[in-house]
């Protein structure tokens, strides 16, 4: 068997691991400074501003192309969501009716197991 200390593959892996640790630690130190925070947030703020402008531009473009506006698509999504919610409520009601009639079953219609489980006693394998 090859000695790990002289195994080139193991040495390479160890080196990569050490480099990762070293770089992460160095970067973390650098990122802990207020200067880093200032620079990062300055860049982030500029990107957010640009993104907002681009979004507004795209909205105008879509309107000029006679495509549905965001409000219209959102309105449709909301109607769909309300239908989904009503179906959910109906399923829930059916489930309650089933439970009221003594049938314990889930959404899939399968009967639910009884809620009688006790924890295994100390040392018992499950």
């Amino acid at each position, binding site marked *: 068997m*090859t000695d790990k200390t002289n195994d080139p593959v193991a040495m390479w892996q160890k080196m990569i*691991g050490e480099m990762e640790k070293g770089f992460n630690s160095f*970067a973390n130190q650098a990122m802990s400074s*207020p200067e880093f925070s200032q620079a990062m947030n300055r860049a982030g*703020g500029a990107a957010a501003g640009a993104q907002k402008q681009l979004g507004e531009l795209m909205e105008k473009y879509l309107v000029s192309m006679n495509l549905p506006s965001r409000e219209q698509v959102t309105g449709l999504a909301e109607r769909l969501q309300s239908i989904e919610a009503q179906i959910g409520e109906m399923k829930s009601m059916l489930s309650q009716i089933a439970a009221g009639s003594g049938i314990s079953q889930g959404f899939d219609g399968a009967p639910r197991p009884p*809620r009688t489980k006790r924890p295994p006693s100390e040392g018992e394998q499950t």
Partner: protein
Amino acid sequence: MNAPTGLDFASIPERIQSEVQRAIQRSIKGVEYFSTSGPSLGSTPKDVLHSRGTMNLYHYRPMSDEIYRVPVLIVMATTNRGYILDLVPGQSFIEFLLKRGYDVYMLDWSAPRPEEKSLRMEDYVLDFVPDCVRRVQQDSGEQDVSVIGYCFGGVLSLLYGSIHQDGPMKNLICFTTPIDFREMKLFSNFSDRRYFDVDRLVDSIGNVPPEMILSSFEMLRPASRTVSQIQLWENIWNDEFVKSYRMFDRWATDTLPLAGEYFRTITKDLMWDNKLFNDTMSVGGRAAKLENIKVPILHAVAEHDHIVPYEAAKHLIAKIGSADKEEVMLKGGHVSLVAGANAVKRLWPKLDSWLGKRST
């Protein structure tokens, strides 16, 4: 063995042969990697009990002939998808719970839509979580509910529990949950109030994009992504390694955007003013003090958590008002604590032994 160098010359041809075979396998598997998708995740059978905007409530179909009386509601972190707790059969926390006889529900999140940018902390703590708890009660027919919160899902669970002191939460389990946000040093510096204009950000872009969330996580260990890709290439001949890499990589990069107003509150109340730790937190005008929580609580923390360092989580148990409280520190990182091969051996059995006796 050659004593001075430590090299076993007899094994060199064998080693070369093995490396050549791996090199060939890497080329074949490398092509395969790009032409196939990863394993199917989150496939434990479940029903969508309720869905409303960003909120989804699932009920997992029982896998045991007999279940504990008290159902379990898992509250997922708002930045990530819940399938980290349901990777693949044999490595699924959900499947583990089901097989151990728990009745499992999960509050999982979809990406908030642009018009949901106005969702506030109140919507999460005073509406989404209580609504799900109510639905779990209704669906299970039980009044008591145990809650498990992962990472920021733990923070939401704590806020919920501290405001709804009269129940129906019976037990609370938090995984890697921060309460002292000053101790999340890098996040704290990234959001330094002198330089980070959260109002401008939220007012200009609405929801915080997932790329921004992902890069702030990746910046905590900037070399790790490159190194993990090198490791993938080295191990691409190993199907198990590749499967595991793909599962975790897919999940880690599948970050969710955060609703703008919610993010504003997190930044101002938690990151800047550290209100949860200072006992000054309130949600919708209702005080949320940790000492108000009196139910049994287990807090599991990871020894090598780079996202929520132990310093940020360690005061939780001391500040909770419960008499029955326990912190357990296990080997692993922020994700490997709850998912993957090590979680199967460490966290899950610990949780089962703690929760089982409190679920009857």
